């Protein structure tokens, strides 16, 4: 597979061979007037990583990706690709997108509707001044890699969404970029195709040996695909680490409530008489001083339904998951999810009681910052 993809010639880019981190962001920021879309982020990933920029809409992840691609310029900080500075807010350096050795798959795929599939893939090579024979050979290679060789003569309007997606990926891969950028590439596919394409993308990522950056708001995609996740919020990185890091040691209440299937429960409480209390309900001993406002994290698997449980919830939904059952309810303004082995008895809309362990899985302060040692 590797041979089919990497032609004999070195990649036609100026990024050069990678030494040290493949991607480095240093204090990167992008301001629009008074508002900061990206508010000073730092991260660094090695060659071959699969970096996922995760976060809710408006968190700055797409802006970060577009700055990596070179479609937008940072107003501060620096971007280094393979050790080379390609954009700097202070020094005003901007290497144009075509010379960064990066390829981008757009959310809408952005296939040129007036060019056939083959022309779509070949045109970037023509701009890169490859001769006709090499262009044809290369295009044939990537179309075969993506399993769409038989669509070569069709126009984008004549193929399905999933096939368009493959063409967009083939077009990106053709110039052999060292960095693959994906802007929510699966959001326009149906659920089944999405799962299949996830595996396909990982296969391509491994086959090319390139470094990938992938933007999504879907934490499942992040958890299944990433080697590195940067969970973003309000233009900053809330937590950067491996998927396991984020799941096991969430740095904030926001992270805890964002990742995981189901995500962890985060309940507001206050310390009184050396114990955590939530609306008068005793949730266990606390080492913190009285009067402290806290957010207690309990994983769904740490909670159980129990008629004698301390916490009362109102059941809102229950769904099967991998042979077990998820039951969700509300307690005050917080959502509570419990994992049960058997189909739960409580009726939707009726109250149920939940047993809470003595020690929460994590404790955050009122602003969501972690208080106990992670």
């Amino acid at each position, binding site marked *: 597979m590797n041979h089919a993809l990497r032609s004999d010639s070195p990649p036609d880019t100026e990024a050069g061979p990678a030494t040290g981190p493949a991607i480095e962001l240093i204090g990167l920021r992008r301001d629009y007037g008074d508002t900061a879309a990206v508010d000073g982020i730092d991260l660094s990933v090695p060659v071959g990583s699969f970096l996922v920029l995760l976060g809710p809409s408006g968190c700055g992840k797409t802006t970060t990706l577009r700055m990596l691609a070179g479609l937008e310029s940072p107003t501060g900080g620096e971007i280094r690709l393979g050790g080379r500075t390609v954009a700097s807010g202070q020094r005003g350096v901007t290497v*144009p997108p075509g010379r960064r050795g990066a390829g981008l798959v757009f959310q809408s795929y952005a296939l*040129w509707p007036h060019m056939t599939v083959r022309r779509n893939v070949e045109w970037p090579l023509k*701009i890169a001044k490859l001769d006709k024979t090499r262009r044809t050979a290369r295009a044939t290679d990537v179309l075969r890699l993506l399993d769409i060789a038989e669509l070569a003569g069709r126009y984008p309007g004549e193929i399905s969404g999933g096939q368009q997606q493959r063409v967009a990926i083939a077009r990106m891969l053709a110039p052999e970029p060292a960095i693959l950028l994906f802007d929510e590439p699966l959001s326009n596919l149906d659920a089944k195709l999405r799962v299949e394409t996830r595996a396909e993308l990982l296969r391509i990522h491994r086959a090319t040996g390139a470094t990938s950056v992938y933007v999504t708001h879907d934490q499942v995609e992040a958890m299944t695909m990433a080697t590195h996740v940067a969970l973003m919020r309000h233009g900053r990185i809330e937590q950067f680490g491996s998927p396991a890091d984020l799941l096991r040691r969430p740095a904030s209440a926001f992270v805890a409530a964002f990742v995981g299937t189901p995500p962890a429960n985060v309940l507001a409480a206050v310390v009184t008489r050396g114990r955590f209390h939530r609306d008068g309900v005793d949730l266990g001993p606390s080492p913190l001083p009285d009067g402290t406002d806290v957010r207690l994290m309990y994983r769904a698997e740490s909670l159980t339904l129990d008629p004698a449980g301390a916490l009362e919830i109102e059941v809102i939904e229950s769904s099967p998951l991998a042979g077990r059952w998820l039951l969700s309810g509300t307690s005050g303004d917080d959502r509570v999810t419990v994992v049960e082995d058997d189909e739960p008895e409580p009726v939707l809309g009726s109250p149920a009681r939940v047993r809470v362990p003595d020690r929460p899985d994590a404790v955050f302060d009122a602003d969501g910052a972690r208080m106990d040692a992670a």
Partner: protein
Amino acid sequence: MLLGAVTALVLAVLVVAPLAGLVATTLRPDGLTAWGDVVASPLSRNLFYEPLTNSLVIGFATAAGSMLLGGGLAWLVVMTDVRFKKTIGLLAAIPFALPSFALALAWETVFRNDRIGGRVGLLHGMGLDIPDWLAWGALPISATLIAHYYSLTFVLVAAALAGVKGDLLEAGEVAGASRARVAVSIALPVVMPALVSSALLAFAEGVSNFASPALLGLPVRYQTLSTRLYGSISTGQVERGYVLSLLLIAVAAIVLFLSTRLVGGRRSYATITGKGGRRRTLELGRYRPAATGVALTAVALTTVLPAAVLLLSSFARRTNSFTDGFTLHFWTGASDPAFAQGQRGVLRNPQVIEAAATTVLLGLAVAAAATVLGLAVGYVVTRLRGAPLVTQALTLLSFLPFLIPGIALGAAFIAQFGRPIGPLPALYGTFAILVIAGAAYTLPFAAQSGRTSVGQISGELEESAVMAGAGMTRRLGRIVVPLAARGLLAGGVLVFVKMVRDLSLVVLLVTPATPLLSVVTYRYASEGFAQFANAITVIIAAISVGATVLARRLQGAAQPWVER
């Protein structure tokens, strides 16, 4: 950035310079006297106030008539089960492509009476007594303008109504509203912007139209602002003409300004359309035959009938008489002292042949120039978001000519380019000034088509070319232009047709060195050679309609990836 600056500069020369010239001229001593004459002197009544009143009356009548006729037909065709929808839709879209003087000439051919002597119309010739109000002045002028401009209202309103998707209306019905209630509460508000803006457009056109009042009013001294303006300049009272131009621009500008104020806040309705779904049509029941009959009559009266009248009368041996035999003389005849003072048939007349060639050439040149400008404006305005000043200036400049009636713009071009500027020679009387004036005149249409056709190309399509390393020229040439081709071509044809049939802009600019069909027609008509005028009008109509048909073919060929 560079593209933006260059485009802004070109627009400034095209639009701002002539206007500045116009204003500057009227501020010299002669000009100031003219202001006094026009606005506050014993002459004012005749020079300004009466023509203004007449213009406003015609404008109101044109707007109201167009709204009723065009809006009503659009409603019938889109929302009801009226018969022959295709035929009605096709015919209703035609009058706008025809020269506005075609209908005036046809009217004259039928209704002219003997008030001013000379030839008389068909009906009078058959012994009927045609009252003056039916033959001359406000009624025939308004009627012919309505017959011309309702077409625009029809197209705009029909498009807006078609944009009201079925589920939007069904949502209203599900909520328990009656069909009529749904029509009034949902459909009407959605098409209101189209209705109001097309009515005000018709008003502005009615106020400033030249051809109809010149043919149906001027002979009996029924003056409007535009005929007064033309009269002043062609009789050497240039400053008075310029002052009238400025006043005419002011009237048109106020109307259009009000229209954007009125419609502007509602424009967001245009984007409120539901998802697809078939629209169920209103069943007319027993009114169906009557409605069909009324609609067919209306479109026939404004297209087939005038065309037939013009064509037939161009063969009439005796002017405006279908009973004294027919002849091909006015088309192909050699010089014969017995006919039309020895003039040859239009197809043998070198002046007409030359005018036809010049007209087509002018149409092509202006279409090409305006399309390039429109593309540049569209590209800069939709893509250069980083420079709001440039884009705002371009938007403003490109829509400014919309406020300037053709005849006033012609006057402005004479004021600015009529004499040498520095090393540049005077352009008056050259082909160049016609092209430049034409490009300025049609700029709003070209810019609009440029904006919409570039605007509908998703930014990501171009960004993906940026990612491939393509520079701006390459992106324009390989991505933007091919994808915008359909819209640009349609815009280009609109410009071509507008130029070929235009009289008001060119009537002041044309000299014997650069004859144009519309001006030749007007001259023949005002000299009483009805058959020649009608014959040439038929030629103009044929060119316009031919161009439209050809453009449809070309559009199909230009984008093979569509409709496969």
